[in-house]
Each structure stands twice: as structure tokens, then as C-alpha cells.
């Protein structure tokens, strides 16, 4: 009976709070809109970061165990092809693959392509499904065959044409023929890529016969990766040794929601909102004071007035939360994160489509509530207390 009475009492207070919110609908509607925008901004960035981090983790867990690059004066330079032979007798290394890769700037449209030269032997690589690609790979030593992304073909304006030419550093033209197009599902890593044979890449970049860009090292036992990386660094002076763990750690940091633009944008908007919420809630109008005084005369206690104010704040903040959080999902699912894409892609000419669907995590929802809803409730406690301790005889 007591429980039912208490429940009914809270329902009545909620009913009164709803009526109170409706009476000041312009002010409260404005508050909900601004609050929703803040939550939308924060949630969008959090979900986008979560989606990008998941993409990086899922895709790059297949990155090479160890990548070896040569540095000179802080810049990456070509590595001698015989470096591979120096590594082969390190115990624990399964295979060493030479690769040439670099950027090709297309002056016609301002796009940057990533050209990868690799002698691919798909039959030797288990677990590669035929669905991941279309056409066939450039054969070893093939000078004209190229596999490229649909985005690159579109940017180059190839239409139905299969052949095109690129400039070598000495301005001599090199012809290529499309042998295949990367599957659209591989766009997160191939959006700007042209895959050619090692010899064709060397020819395009005008590199010497004994030069390569990097070595891809496959390790038999993943637990020995760090030890083997150390041995490689000792054996090849001046090289940068990059392990898969370092790559994954880098991406976890890169897309962390605390980093870069996100932090500045969110801190500024959250601070602005906290000031606005405090200012709005603390500005006691004559009507507010009069209302509380009348309630006191009618027998309301301070705790009742506080409860009404709490319900008002909870209704405003929860409505804004649902609105902002739902809009953030709509923005990411149907809008492909359109608000943040210009920043993420910058001045890139090639713009890969982003299809991110991050997991729904309780920790994300709690984080959003903790950073947005709770501060609002806290910011309205003091003004609620000030309004509830009004003495009836001083007003009425």
C-alpha cells in the first residue's frame, strides 16, 4: 500500500512536471534542441571513431607481421634488394617478400594514387577467396597489367577503356592495361590503389634494378615477432621495423575519440552547453518564485518542489538524449557520417565511400549519458534548490 502510494505520488509529480514544461514550452523546446545537437555531435563522433577503429582492427589484423623500410635523414628511401637475403637465415622467419610502392600524383585531376608493385602468387596464399577480386592479378614480370580500384578508374575518366598511360620521372609514357578491378568491398584498403608487378613498378618509378621500397616479413610464431624485429634492426642499420601490433596500436590511437579535432570540438560544445544549462536553470523568474510560493501555501514541501524540478530536468535531458543519439545513428547509417567526412577526407580527390556500422556497446551509451545527461542534472540541482526554498510569506 505504501509502495503504491509512493508510486502514485511520483506519477503526480511527473504529471505536474509535464504541465510545468508545457507552460514554458518555448524555453524548454529550445533547450531540448540545443541539448540534442550537443549529444548528436558527441555521439556521431564517438560512433564514427568506434566504426573506424573496428574497421582498422578487423582489416589490419591481416597486415604483415613485420614491415622493413630504410630511413635516411628521417625520410624513407629505397632499400637494397639484397637486404632480403640478409634476413633469410634469421631463425623464425617464414618468408621475406620484396615490394615497391609509392605515390603517383595525377596532374590532370589532382589525385594521388598508391601504386603497389608486388609479384603476387595467389595459389601459394591460403584463405584468399575468389570473391575478393575480379579479373586476374598481374603476372610476375608483366609490364603492362594492372589491377586497380573502380574509384581510380572513375577518377581517371577511363569509362570503358582498358588502357591508359602514366608518366615516368623522365616524362616517358608507360602504358598499362586493366587486368582486373578490385572488389568494392575491399575499398577500405584499395580505394586509391593500382597493383602492378614488381618490375612494372620499378619501371614506372624509374628505380634501379637492385632497389625496392620495403620488405614484408612473415614470422612463424607470432610470439617471436618482437625478438625477430630486434634482430632485423641489428642486422640492417638505419631501417625502420614496423610490427603488426604497432600498426594496430597506431590506429587505436589515431581514431580514439579523445584525439585531435574531436576533443577540441566536444570540449568547446560541452562547456558552452554546461554554461547555457546553468544560466537557463538558475534564472529564477518572478513567475517561478510565485509558483513555488503558491505550492508551499498549498502544503507542498521543499522535497516535493525539488522532485518536480528533478523530473523536469530528467525529461528534458532524456528526450534530448534519445533524439541526439538516434540522429547520430541516422547520420552514420544513412548519411555515411557526412558531417565529419569532409574533415576526414580533407582535400582528397579520391573519396572512398564509408560504410561503417559500429557495434552497439553499453559502455558507449553510458559514456554519452555520463558526459551529457549527468552534468545537466548536476547543473540544475543548485537552481532547483534555490527555487524550492522560497518562503511563501515573502512572495504571496
Amino acid at each position: 500500500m505504501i509502495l503504491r502510494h509512493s508510486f502514485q505520488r511520483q506519477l503526480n509529480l511527473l504529471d505536474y512536471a509535464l504541465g510545468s514544461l508545457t507552460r514554458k514550452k518555448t524555453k524548454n523546446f529550445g533547450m531540448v534542441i540545443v541539448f540534442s545537437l550537443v549529444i548528436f555531435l558527441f555521439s556521431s563522433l564517438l560512433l564514427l571513431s568506434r566504426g573506424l577503429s573496428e574497421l582498422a582492427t578487423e582489416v589490419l589484423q591481416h597486415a604483415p607481421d613485420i614491415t622493413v623500410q630504410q630511413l635516411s635523414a628521417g625520410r624513407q628511401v629505397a632499400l637494397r634488394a639484397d637486404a632480403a637475403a640478409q634476413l633469410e637465415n634469421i631463425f623464425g622467419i617464414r618468408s621475406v617478400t620484396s615490394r615497391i610502392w609509392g605515390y603517383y600524383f595525377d596532374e590532370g585531376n589532382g589525385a594521388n594514387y598508391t601504386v603497389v608493385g608486388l609479384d603476387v602468387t595467389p595459389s601459394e596464399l591460403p584463405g584468399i577467396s575468389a570473391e575478393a577480386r575480379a579479373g586476374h592479378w598481374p603476372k610476375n614480370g608483366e609490364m603492362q597489367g594492372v589491377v586497380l580500384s573502380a574509384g581510380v578508374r572513375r577518377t581517371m575518366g577511363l569509362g570503358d577503356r582498358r588502357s591508359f598511360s602514366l608518366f615516368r620521372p623522365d616524362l616517358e609514357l608507360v602504358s598499362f592495361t586493366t587486368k582486373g578491378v578490385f572488389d568494392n568491398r575491399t575499398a577500405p584498403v584499395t580505394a586509391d590503389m593500382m597493383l602492378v608487378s614488381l618490375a612494372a613498378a620499378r619501371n614506372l618509378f624509374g628505380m634501379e634494378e637492385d632497389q625496392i621500397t620495403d620488405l614484408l616479413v612473415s614470422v612463424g610464431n607470432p610470439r617471436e615477432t618482437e625478438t625477430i624485429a630486434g634482430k632485423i634492426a641489428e642486422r640492417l642499420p638505419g631501417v625502420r621495423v614496423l610490427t603488426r601490433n604497432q600498426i594496430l596500436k597506431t590506429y587505436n590511437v589515431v581514431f580514439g575519440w579523445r584525439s585531435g579535432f574531436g576533443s577540441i570540438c566536444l570540449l568547446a560544445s560541452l562547456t558552452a552547453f554546461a554554461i547555457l544549462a546553468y544560466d537557463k536553470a538558475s534564472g529564477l523568474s518572478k513567475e517561478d518564485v510565485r509558483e513555488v510560493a503558491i505550492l508551499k501555501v498549498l502544503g507542498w514541501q521543499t522535497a516535493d518542489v525539488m522532485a518536480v524540478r528533478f523530473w523536469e530536468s530528467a525529461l528534458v535531458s532524456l528526450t534530448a538524449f534519445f533524439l541526439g543519439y538516434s540522429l547520430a545513428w541516422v547520420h552514420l547509417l544513412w548519411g555515411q557520417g557526412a558531417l565529419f567526412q569532409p574533415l576526414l577526407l580533407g582535400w582528397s580527390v579520391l573519396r572512398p565511400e564509408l560504410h561503417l556500422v559500429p557495434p552497439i556497446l553499453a559502455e558507449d551509451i553510458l559514456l554519452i549519458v555520463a558526459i551529457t545527461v549527468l552534468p545537466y542534472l548536476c547543473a540544475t540541482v543548485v537552481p532547483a534548490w534555490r527555487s524550492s526554498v522560497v518562503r511563501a510569506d515573502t512572495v504571496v
Partner: protein
Amino acid sequence: MNLLSSRLQLFCLAAAAVMLLVLTLQWSTMERRSAVLESYGAAAEIAGMLGLSDLALSTEARYTRHPAASDRVVPFMDHPCAIEHFPSGSFFRPVQP
């Protein structure tokens, strides 16, 4: 005794509608997610095959195209007085050495 006033009944109805919308949104999300995760698998296979170390998201600068294969001085080494100026640089945090 009626527990709910007409205003509260309206509020409960609106809350139920919002919850329904949220659940529909989440259901739609889960449905899309399986297709997206499948496409990640295809991208992962290519990454493993070609030894790719980075995502092809931003192609405007080499340190945002290949953040994992760059270090923290790269954004400033285009010429002796270079400052970091690409828009995507504000999204990609400098890489720890």
C-alpha cells in the same frame, strides 16, 4: 482508481513510440552490420595478400594515407619551413614514436 491522468497517458504513448523507433533503428543497424563485417573480411584478405599496413581513407597527404608507416616529423618535412596544413591532419592524431 485511475493511476494516469490524460496528460500522463499521452506521455506514455509518446515514450512508447520513441522506444519503438529506437528499437527499429537498432534492428536496422544489426541487419546492416552483418553485411559490413562480411565486406571487412574481403578487405582483410586483400590486406594480408598485398601486405597493406594502412586504410585508404584520406589520400591528400602521405602521413594521413599511411599513418602507421609515418612518424611524427613527417607532416613537417615537405620543405624546411613547412607547417602541418592538411585538413585531415586535424583528425589524425600524431603517431607515437
